[in-house]
Structures are given as structure tokens and as C-alpha cells.
């Protein structure tokens, strides 16, 4: 960028001050242009877009290494039901232990609760790409990624609890509409929950 090297300090209200030299500004401008296009790649990629696919070929190493590959779609396109994960562990003495992800009583402070909430949402957010639209949610087949995550979660629980086996269930908590709440339906009404089994996992070799 070729221009005068003189500028006024931003917000200082004082006299003109020298800024970077022309060569430095040109180099910085090139880096800036590259970076500014790069931060658009993540948002443009979800849902997939042709232009983003082309840009991604160039930018993937940069935006992935710098954790800039983010879509910034907060609560978009629509706020939906939330998802929880219920685990049931069978201990070596035959007793059972149960837990929930997330659990307000156990996971505190709120950020820690949110970390666990994101785990259950992450599992729910990896549906089978070939699912039939008419299939009831409870009977949806678990996708390859859901099975991968469930195995990992189960391995964590087996190791942490010293359990013999762990069964994982994904729970969907639907949102009631305003009319239902007006008529007295509580947000935790049992009719709003449905679940499906992710799998039962045992210690290796047993």
C-alpha cells in the first residue's frame, strides 16, 4: 500500500506521528488481506458452499492451526431441543450407579456444567447422514461418529469408576410451546423426554 507515512494517533488527539514505513505497511497489508479472507472461510463453510470449498484448500492449514475455523452460528439456524446423556454402570459387586451429563448438582461452576452439556450435545449433533426422515428419533440408528464417541465415553467411565459395564442412553428434551406452558405444562414434564440407547460396553476381555 503506497501512501503517506504520516498519520494522527487514534484517539490521542495529539500531533501527527510517524507510522510504519512503506515496505512494512505493504507486507502487513498482504498478511492482513490473507488473514481477513481466512476468517470468513469458517462461517462460509456451514452449510457447505462452493466458494468456501475452494478457499478451504488454501486456508485449511492456517485456520485449523490457529483455531479460526469457526462458524459463529450461535443458536442458529433454530434453537432446538437439548440433549443429555444418561449412564448406568454395573460395578464389580453387582451394584448399579447412574449419572447424567450434564448434572447441575455435580457439575459446578456453570462453565464446568456447560463443558459436560456440550459433550452430550456433541454426540447428538453427529446424526447418521443416511437416516430416513420418517424414522422416529428413538429408533434412529447411531451414526459411526456417535458410536465412536459412545465408546470413548464408556471407556472413560469404565476406567474412572472401575465398573464392569456401562450402558449409555441419549436423551432428547423437547421444548414445549408457549401454549403448552400457558396450560400448565412444566419444562421438566416426562412427556417432553425421549431416549435411545447408544450401547452397552464392557471391560475389554470380559
Amino acid at each position: 500500500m503506497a501512501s503517506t507515512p504520516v498519520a494522527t494517533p487514534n484517539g490521542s488527539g495529539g500531533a501527527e506521528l510517524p507510522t510504519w514505513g512503506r515496505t512494512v505497511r505493504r507486507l502487513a497489508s498482504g498478511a492482513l488481506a490473507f488473514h481477513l479472507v481466512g476468517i470468513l472461510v469458517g462461517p462460509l463453510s456451514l452449510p457447505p458452499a462452493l466458494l468456501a470449498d475452494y478457499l478451504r484448500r488454501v486456508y485449511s492449514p492456517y485456520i485449523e492451526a490457529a483455531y479460526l475455523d469457526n462458524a459463529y452460528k450461535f443458536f442458529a439456524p433454530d434453537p432446538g431441543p437439548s440433549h443429555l446423556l444418561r449412564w448406568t454402570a454395573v460395578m464389580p459387586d453387582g451394584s448399579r450407579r447412574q449419572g447424567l451429563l450434564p448434572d447441575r448438582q455435580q457439575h459446578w461452576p456453570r462453565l464446568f456444567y456447560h463443558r459436560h452439556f456440550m459433550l452430550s450435545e456433541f454426540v447428538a449433533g453427529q446424526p447418521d447422514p443416511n437416516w430416513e426422515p420418517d424414522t422416529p428419533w428413538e429408533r434412529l440408528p447411531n451414526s459411526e461418529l456417535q458410536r465412536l464417541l459412545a465408546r470413548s465415553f464408556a471407556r472413560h467411565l469404565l476406567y474412572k469408576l472401575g465398573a464392569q459395564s456401562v450402558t449409555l442412553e441419549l436423551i432428547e428434551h423437547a421444548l414445549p410451546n408457549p401454549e403448552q406452558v400457558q396450560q400448565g405444562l412444566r419444562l421438566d414434564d416426562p412427556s417432553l423426554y425421549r431416549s435411545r440407547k447408544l450401547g452397552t460396553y464392557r471391560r475389554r476381555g470380559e
Partner: protein
Amino acid sequence: MLRGYLRELWHWWVDGWNRFWFSPADPATLGLLRALAGGMLLYTHAVWSLGLNDFFGPYSWVSPQAAHELYRGDVPWSWFWHISSPTLLWLLHTAVLVVMAMFALGLFSRVTAVLSWLCAVAYAHRVPGALFGLDQINAMLAMYLMLGPCGAAWSVDRWIARWRSGRPLPPAVPSTAANLAVRLIQVHMCVIYFFAGISKLQGQSWWAGTALWGAVANLEYQTLDLTWMCHTPWLVALLTQATVWWELFFCVLVWPRLLRPLVLAFAVPLHLGIAVGMGMVTFGLVMLIGCASFVPPWLVRRLLGGGPAVPPAGVESGAPRAGRAMRRRRGARG
């Protein structure tokens, strides 16, 4: 005529570009952002301590092997891939917290800024599935803060320099790097809000004006019972649509001097509402920290004290006057 137009367009673009990115700026805003973002980084990573082995250990919720498979071969860097010893994990984590505390306080700022960014990215890459917007904004802020002299104001570094010199220091020297870092945060915030807004239009509920109910009626997010809004659908619609329109047009309306306070003022109830109503306090606050990049340095000094706090006459930043200076020079050149 076309050549004249193109030449004028080129000069207009180059002058504007240089003025926007390369005008030296008082590092007061950058220093404030370092303290706030550094504090948030420290808190965010301190909370990992409650489940360090659960999230980062070899038998974590998302194990290293599972994470590698999730990334489908494009595994991003993180030193956590190479750590399996719980002792080493805790030692490293403690060191990271110390670095982030130093960064928040502004001690060895230039070094701790770079280290804090590397740490934030390393943590994020290791735990796919446990992340959300907070981590994205944390990493973004850390990345840009390390580009400028973020310890030149409101820092222990500056306090030490004053102590060593034995007398009050002159005001921090305006810096091009300080301006560049703040500008990058501002532009990135515009990108975030724009895509947050435009992606909401891909759904039906934001357009229809019912989306906010989806947040109110979600028990897993709820920290404040706002279900009384079922009786005021007009309020749900108003707040839903105001959110979308504000996010969409933030990138335009935040730049004019007179509109900026209004645009930023809307951010406060919006993000505090998310913080209080949905229990996402950290996310709400980190978005407000990003918005604080639009607070001009003179106002930061006026609010926090320390050094001159003189607003430029008639403008909130010196950029327009720099533009006039440039035009005068070009005019003088004929």
C-alpha cells in the same frame, strides 16, 4: 474519465486502508482488553482443573484416539497429544495458569501474550466436543492481543518501569501495532456478529420471531425462569427480531461515531441477558470484552484514570483528521 475515476478510487482505498490499520493509537484500549481477556482466559482454564484428567487425560471423555478419528486425519497441533502422565499433565496445567495470570496482570506481557494464545489453542484442539463460543472468542482475543503492546497500559510491566525510573512515566507512546491489534478485534467482532445474524435467517424461528422462546423454554440452559413470556408473545417476537437485526447490522452501525454508543449499549442487555437467563455468564462476558474494543482510548483513560484523557475535537478517533492531513498533502503535491 474512467482512468481518473479509477485513480481516485485507488487513492481513496489506499488512504482509507492505511488510515484504518496503520494510524498509531494510544494503547489504553489494548491494555484494558488484555486485563479483561486475560482474566477470562485464566478463569476458563482454571475451571478445567476440576476435571483435568476427565477432559485431557488418556482415559478422558473424548480420548486422544477418538479425537484423532473425529478430526479424520487433519489432527490440529496440541501438546496434549503427547502427554499421558497425570503428573506431567498437572505440572503443565499449573504452568499454563501461571502464564495466564501473568498475562492478565500484564507481567512480561509480550511473552505471556504469545504463550497464552498458544495455550488457549492447544487446549481447544484437544477437547473437540466440549467447546463452545467462549473458547472461540478467547482464542481470537488472545491472538490479536499478542500482536500489539498489550502491556503498555494498565499492567505490572508499566508499574515496574515506573518503579525503576523512580518518577512518573510519560504517557504511553501511541503505537501502530496497538491500533492494528484493536482494529483486528473490531473487524473480527463484526464478522462474528454478521454471520451469527445471517445464519439465524437460515432458520424459521428467528424470522418468525419465536426463537427466543426456544432459549426461554430450554431447561438445561435456564438459570432464570422467564417462562412468563408465554403470555407475552409480542415481547418474544420483539426481542427475537431485535437480536437478529442488531447482529446483522452491527458491522455497519458500530462505525459512525454517533451510533457507536447506542450499538454498544444494546450489546450490554443482550449479552447480560444470555449470561443471567441462560447461565452462560462466561460467554456473555467475553462477547462484551470483544465489544469493549470499540471503546476509544481517551474514554478508557477517562474511565480508569491515569494519563491524559483528551477526546479529539469533534471526533472520537484521530482517523478522520489523518485523512484530511493526507488529502492536504496530496493536494500540495498537485
